[in-house]
């Protein structure tokens, strides 16, 4: 294929990403397809494959924000948060790097084919330390995570359980001396335990655009001349409300029955209240049937 610009980078040779060469165990060879210049220091955005809409929305939101600042978004093209972040970065006109656990020419996961094709055709780059045509295997992914951490200057974890592959990427990041950022989640939700643990261990919590930009600047991803102050047009993430149903749902994803019993509502009333908030885009029903916060549309 003519649009298929493959390249191979060897450790110690010209063009090999400098930031990756300085990690404890850099890959000897890096196979890639796409625009090799994308392999500059960037922000890794990673998270659970079984993400909640909250995790997906956070991934997309912060990826978009980073892309707008011209920061490359690095991730693993996995289902869930990874794909959400990379797609959002591309949509916002940014560039992205996908690091795979198989040959860089393999479409894995299959549902990421369109994303990978876009990256390979120049909107970014797809890289791997595994040779062309190598199928994915279980043991490849921790190694892949090491490269994601190595290519980035800071790693943002949007949603992670404990233990999880995402958490292992954060470990690699710390080993490589990268900044680790985490989006806090509910203390009652096991899927957020990884992020909350990272914050407890010293990761910088990212709760709004300002937090993110601060951290990007600290990691050296924003140029010296980039104004650090946040303009008035900055969109607010947190919703303010006095509606008890909305407050309950924003605090933590909640099942309908819990909502009915804890707020003392009639089942029909609660359903109507939730449906109204849903159609206004203030809350969303998660795939598991609970209602929780989502990004305002």
């Amino acid at each position, binding site marked *: 294929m003519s649009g298929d610009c493959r390249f191979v980078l060897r450790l110690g040779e010209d063009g090999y990403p400098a930031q990756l060469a300085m990690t404890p165990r850099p890959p000897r060879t890096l196979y890639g397809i796409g625009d090799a210049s994308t392999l500059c220091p960037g922000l890794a955005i990673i998270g659970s494959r079984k993400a909640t809409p909250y995790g997906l929305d956070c991934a997309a939101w912060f990826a978009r924000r980073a892309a707008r600042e011209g920061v490359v978004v690095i991730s693993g093209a996995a289902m869930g948060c990874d794909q959400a972040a990379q797609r959002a970065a591309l949509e916002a006109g940014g560039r992205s790097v996908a690091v795979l656990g198989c040959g860089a020419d393999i479409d894995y996961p299959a549902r990421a084919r369109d994303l990978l094709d876009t990256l390979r055709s120049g909107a970014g780059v797809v890289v791997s330390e595994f040779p062309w045509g190598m199928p994915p295997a279980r043991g490849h992914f921790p190694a892949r995570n090491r490269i994601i951490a190595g290519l980035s200057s800071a790693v943002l974890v949007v949603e992670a359980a404990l233990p999880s592959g995402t958490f292992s990427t954060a470990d690699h990041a710390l080993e490589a001396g990268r900044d680790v950022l985490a989006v806090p989640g509910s203390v*009652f939700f096991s899927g957020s335990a990884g992020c909350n643990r990272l914050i407890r261990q010293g990761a910088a919590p990212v709760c709004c655009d300002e937090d993110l930009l601060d951290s990007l600047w600290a990691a050296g991803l924003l140029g010296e001349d980039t104004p650090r102050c946040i303009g008035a047009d900055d969109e607010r993430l947190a919703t303010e409300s006095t509606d008890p149903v909305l407050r309950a749902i924003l605090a933590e994803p909640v099942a309908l029955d819990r909502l009915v*019993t804890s707020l003392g509502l009639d089942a029909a009333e609660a*359903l109507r209240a939730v449906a109204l908030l849903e*159609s206004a885009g203030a809350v969303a029903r998660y795939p598991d*049937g609970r209602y929780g916060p989502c990004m305002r549309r």
Partner: protein
Amino acid sequence: MTQSVVASSTIVGVEAIPVEVQVDVSPGLPAFLIVGLGDTAVLEARDRVRAAIRACGFDFPTARVTVNLAPSPVRKHGAGFDLPIALGVLAATRQVPQSTAEAVAVGELALDGSVREVPGLLAHAIAARSRALPLLVSLSALPVVSAVPGVSVRPLTSIAELRRGLPEERSAPPVIAPRFDDVPDLAEVHGQPAAKRALEIAAAGGLGLLLIGPPGAGKTMLARRLSGILPALTEHEALESAVVHSVAGLDAAPVLGGVRPFRAPHHTASTAGLVGGGSPPRPGEVSLAHNGVLFLDEIPEFSPSALQALRQPLEDGYLTLVRAEGRVRYPARFALVAAMNPCPCGYLGDLARQCTCQPALVDRYRARIGGPLMDRIDMTLRVDRIDPACMLRGSSDEPSAAVRLRVSEARAWSQARGRPRLPPTGAALLRACALDGASRKAVEAAARVHRLSGRGVTRLLRVARTIADLDGDPSVEEKHVLEASCYRALQ
């Protein structure tokens, strides 16, 4: 002339079709022949009839006995021909009065001459009524066959009683009084307010309901209580359902008592078990659930071919089996309730346990139900395990009887609106909903936010119309649409 003719009938589908039992006793080498396409059970009647006749003090003729079951092309099944054959032999040899042959006789004989019930007696009773003949059956079957209005029942316990002629007409007290005592009550379910509300709506509108939740959430417990909140069967419906039960050889008494049938086939059920089949064809679970509830627990575990076979009954309310020997039609109009885990391991979204399923596996698991069946599921609801504290706090929950009353009122109201039966679609549905500005806007918003397909909007309106019926509202309002949108399918 030593011949006689006795009326009887045989079951085809859920109907009994007339069969004439002709007996000829003529001189010759002693033999006992049965012709006319009988199955093994029919042919074995020879030994039972001979023994029964002798045991009751009659003589079995030492001659050539030929029995013909007419019409000959129809296959005859079962032991129900024992009684008419014995009666025919006795009448042909003048051992009983000729008047005894003027009845539809159906029954199996024991070797001592006592008469036993056979499956399908209700169908036989209906056939006897339409032929304006009395029905000669076992005394034990009297309470059940008395449920058929206008049939003259002549019960007997043994063929010895035939010596005095046809037994007297008798009837049993009708069992038509709703007996909901044996049906589990909704008050036993603690908490789960949203699920109870959904059950009430499903009952009022005859809508298909899918319950999704982790193991132990109470999905089965809730579904089992649906038949208790449905209004009692009308006399006509009760008889329709009871005939199917009778043909299948099941106890028809609860159905005759007005309680809607609740059938919960296991997910290993074969296609024939689910929709009917076999030789001779027998009604399946969908027909046994006629006028009641069909509950499919763990619906993704059912074989895809069995689920596909549900399409015809779901669309038409009956089922046609086509076999080499002909086609039979079974009634099958039921409310579908299905339950499933959110994912193969069952714990997706559970707060206490981590789900161990790959995301792709969850999608595949959910896709197993298949489009056509999902189209008939109007409402989907997530059910979660309840807090044990709520269970121990004791019950102040509403009993089924109170919910049943509201459901009956809603059904009466929807009928008063001039809507005979769900599910309406298209223009009729829109007319029935009589949307105003606000409710129209709510439907549009729901369709946009939740990306509903055309079918999704139809389902939304159908559910909203039912909720409005529960409120006794002539038109569908915004609040009804809002609530209905919560019951849309999980993505």
